[in-house]
């Protein structure tokens, strides 16, 4: 019954979405507010209906209705409640439902805004949002239905379908197979929804861009309306990427956080164009330039979102991520083709109307440096895209498949990332329109001198590798420029208004959130850079088999194997947990418990490292194997990851900065209230 309600709600939503598309187009052609409003109501109605569907699926997941194939594949009786709830996005069908639900929430929220000034955008924003929604609903209803039940014919043949095939009986399973153990990690529980929300939210700026192209209103209005939405999308996408890295570090057991796998790259690509877009829209707002560029960037971002989803779900590319393959590939392919062709046609049609209102006046002006920043982001995108597409291309042309591995990406992107860091230090100090070597030099010399302490300190600690020293300088440069800029403004405000420093800091961030949020983000990036340099350039590892009391050495550290305990837990795991002491230069500094959990129901093992974590470094110990009690030997793998915690701490600062930037400006609200008051006064008069 509940499954029928959930499925019914999905079907009704599909009909309503199709109606909404037709009504919006008709209303726009006829210039009829009646039909456009009707389309808007259709859009708004999709949210409660999809909410009903999500609630139905959640009830089924929590109740353990294992006659449903999806419920049986992602939950089991022994799973705790929170994992049953989050199993909504633990498999393909459920995550598609979650995706449409979030998308409907975003699209509904945007249609609730005040449209008085931009009425002409409304129907087309609805059309774009509903076309995307319709596509995903179609996938769920016709191909990947989470409400499909399992049926048997004569006790043997099993069929998955929503309704009973003739002569079939419902197949009740005693227990489900349970969620993949690798996904039972707090990072993995939050990582997919964050990524999905980030992906989905980019539909909003794209919808406005398309609306601007269709209606011909190509000024910067669409950018101003969607600024906050873009920042929200970008915030969630960044959070998703960070959590994914943390999950890989904690769970995958190779001491790393990023492997340049096609699945990871497919989430990075829209982030790259999105970040470039966030910077370049500022140039359009300030100078009326780069209109083509911004359109291209937002179209690319949306299409890369769809392309990335296609890559991860269709199995087209080699990946170590074992995603379930399914038949949605061809349908996705059709949708990608449609969005690319339509977007490109619209863009080319309006190409001549998107001319810049100004020209670059100085190569050192902020807009010129922002443009360079955009080119570097695009450079990284091209490298990533090329790496992902190259195996397909080489197979087509030479019949031989050639894959590029992480070294290709690392070598090709490292100088581009270094360039971005350099610009991150210079651009905030250059002026709009006109900047010369003298003005820029005057602004830069103080933080540059301070930043030289970065590589100096590194050299004192015995680091002489030039790339590492350059990296440390760049990180120090970004940090000192950021502190210098922010600090100068705080001190000036504190002096002029006699405010305490903390208050000046707070007020300043509140006054121009995008600018100061941006500085905090830059600081976060510098901290993350420190962590990345530490791991990428100075990670060391060793592996060895030792008996109780014996030691395994790695640099200044050594570990000694104390004991191992093997026991069953109430949630269906067999746990082997070793006790390992960690010594640094001969002194005991801690005890860690690397373990191996074996999940009986899914017959999958999972390695959980024991990590001794400080801001200086992580000692990451993995229990690889152990022998029965008679020999009591165990194999350990140890990684020494210097500075890695700066990556996670920097990530937190980064997200904090993004939150500050995405928060509504107080000034904006004040202006709005003031305007309202003024109009009231006028009307009273």
């Amino acid at each position, binding site marked *: 019954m509940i499954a029928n309600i959930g499925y019914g709600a999905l079907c009704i939503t599909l009909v309503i979405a199709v109606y909404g598309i037709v009504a919006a187009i008709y209303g726009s052609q006829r210039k009829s507010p009646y039909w456009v409003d009707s389309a808007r109501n259709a859009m708004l109605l999709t949210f409660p209906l999809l909410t009903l569907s999500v609630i139905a699926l959640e009830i089924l997941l929590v109740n353990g209705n294992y006659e449903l194939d999806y419920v049986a594949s992602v939950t089991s009786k022994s799973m705790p409640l929170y994992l049953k709830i989050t199993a909504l996005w633990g498999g393909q069908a459920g995550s598609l439902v979650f995706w449409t639900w979030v998308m409907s929430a975003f699209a509904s929220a945007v249609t609730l805004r005040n449209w008085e000034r931009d009425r002409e955008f409304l129907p087309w924003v609805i059309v774009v949002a509903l076309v995307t929604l319709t596509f995903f609903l179609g996938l769920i209803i016709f191909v990947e239905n989470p409400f499909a039940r399992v049926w048997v014919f004569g006790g043997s043949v099993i069929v998955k379908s929503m309704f009973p095939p003739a002569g079939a009986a419902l197949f009740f399973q005693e227990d489900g197979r349970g969620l993949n153990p690798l996904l039972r990690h707090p990072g993995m529980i939050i990582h997919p929804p964050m990524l999905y929300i980030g992906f989905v939210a980019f539909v909003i700026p794209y919808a406005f861009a398309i609306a601007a192209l269709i209606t011909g209103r190509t000024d910067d209005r669409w950018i101003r309306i969607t600024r906050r939405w873009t920042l929200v999308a970008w915030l969630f996408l960044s959070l998703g990427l960070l959590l994914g890295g943390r999950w890989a570090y904690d769970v*995958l*057991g*190779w001491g*790393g956080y990023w*492997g340049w796998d096609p699945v990871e790259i497919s989430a990075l690509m829209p982030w790259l164009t999105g970040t470039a877009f966030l910077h370049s829209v500022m140039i359009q707002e300030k100078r009326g330039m780069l209109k083509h560029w911004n359109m291209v960037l937002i179209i690319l971002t949306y299409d890369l979102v769809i392309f990335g989803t*296609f890559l991860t779900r*269709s*199995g*087209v*590319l*080699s*990946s*170590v991520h*074992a995603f379930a*393959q399914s038949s949605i*590939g*061809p349908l996705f*392919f059709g949708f*990608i*083709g449609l969005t*690319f*062709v339509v977007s*490109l046609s619209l863009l*080319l049609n309006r*190409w001549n109307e998107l001319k810049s209102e100004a020209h670059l006046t100085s190569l050192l002006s902020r807009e010129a440096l922002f443009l360079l920043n955009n080119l570097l982001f695009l450079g990284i995108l091209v490298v990533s895209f090329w790496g992902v*597409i190259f195996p*397909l*291309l080489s*197979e*087509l042309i030479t019949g*031989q*498949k*050639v*894959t590029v*591995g*992480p*070294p290709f990406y690392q070598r090709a992107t490292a100088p581009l990332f270094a360039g971005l860091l350099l610009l991150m230090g210079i651009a905030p100090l250059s002026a709009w329109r006109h900047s010369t070597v003298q003005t820029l030099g005057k602004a830069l010399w103080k933080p540059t001198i301070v930043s030289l302490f970065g590589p100096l300190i590194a050299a004192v600690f015995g680091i002489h590798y030039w790339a590492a020293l350059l990296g440390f300088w760049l990180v120090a440069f970004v940090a000192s420029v950021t502190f210098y800029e922010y600090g100068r403004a705080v001190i000036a405000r504190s002096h002029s208004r006699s405010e305490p420093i903390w208050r000046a800091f707070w007020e300043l961030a509140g006054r121009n959130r995008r600018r100061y949020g941006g500085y905090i983000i830059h600081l976060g990036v510098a901290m993350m850079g420190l962590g990345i340099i530490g791991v990428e350039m100075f990670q060391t590892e060793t*592996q060895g088999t030792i008996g109780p009391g014996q030691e395994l050495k790695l640099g200044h550290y050594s570990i000694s194997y104390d004991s191992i305990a093997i026991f069953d837990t109430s949630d269906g795991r067999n746990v082997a947990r070793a006790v390992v002491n960690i010594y640094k230069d001969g002194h005991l500094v801690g005890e860690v418990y690397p373990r*191996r959990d074996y999940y009986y129901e899914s017959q999958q*093992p999972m*390695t959980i490292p024991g990590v001794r974590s400080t801001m200086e470094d992580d000692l990451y110990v993995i229990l*690889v*194997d152990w022998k029965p009690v008679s020999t009591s030997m165990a*194999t350990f793998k140890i990684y020494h990851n210097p500075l890695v915690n700066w990556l996670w701490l920097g990530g937190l600062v980064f997200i904090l900065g993004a939150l500050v930037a995405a928060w509504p400006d107080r000034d904006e609200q004040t202006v709005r209230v003031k305007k309202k008051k003024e109009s009231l006064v006028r009307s009273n008069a």
Partner: protein
Amino acid sequence: MENRKSESHTSFSKKKTIWGRIFVWGALIIFLILLALGLLRTQKGPVGVGDKTPNFTLTTFDGEQISLSSLKGKVVLINFWASWCTPCEQEAAELEMAWQSYQGSGKVIFLGVDYVDTEPEAQAYLQKYNISYPNGPDLGTRISQAFRIRGVPETYILDQNGIIQFVQIGPFRSSSQIQSVIDSFLQP
């Protein structure tokens, strides 16, 4: 004169625009064709349990030629790896450890197929993990294409009749995991 100049300028920029458009559409079409071809290949699906493997000959780094058909009667473990592949490193020592326990028996053979790699790096990798079972490059990616592998590491275990009995996508977690799979095929 000026008019003619501006006319030629306009026609030049028009031409430029047309070529630009042709380029953009061409790039999009090529991209879509590539995706379509990739998709068609994927629809075939990977080689799985119960499938018979096509015969191939692996030329090892030592120059020895090993053909799969000559290994009939033995349990064969075929491991696809690459020196650039981080997850491969996770299982490298485990594979060698498992190999050590079968080496003398004559009933089991391990083959390492080095996928899309360069020889010096591959040799360094083999040395780093002291790998002693036969390893060779997948020349022209013929072997990996026959297995339609999706990435590295991937491991296929064939029974004595050359039928695939076990597929591991991603790294093995331990040598005991590898041994338990192989031992199940060695039972009389």
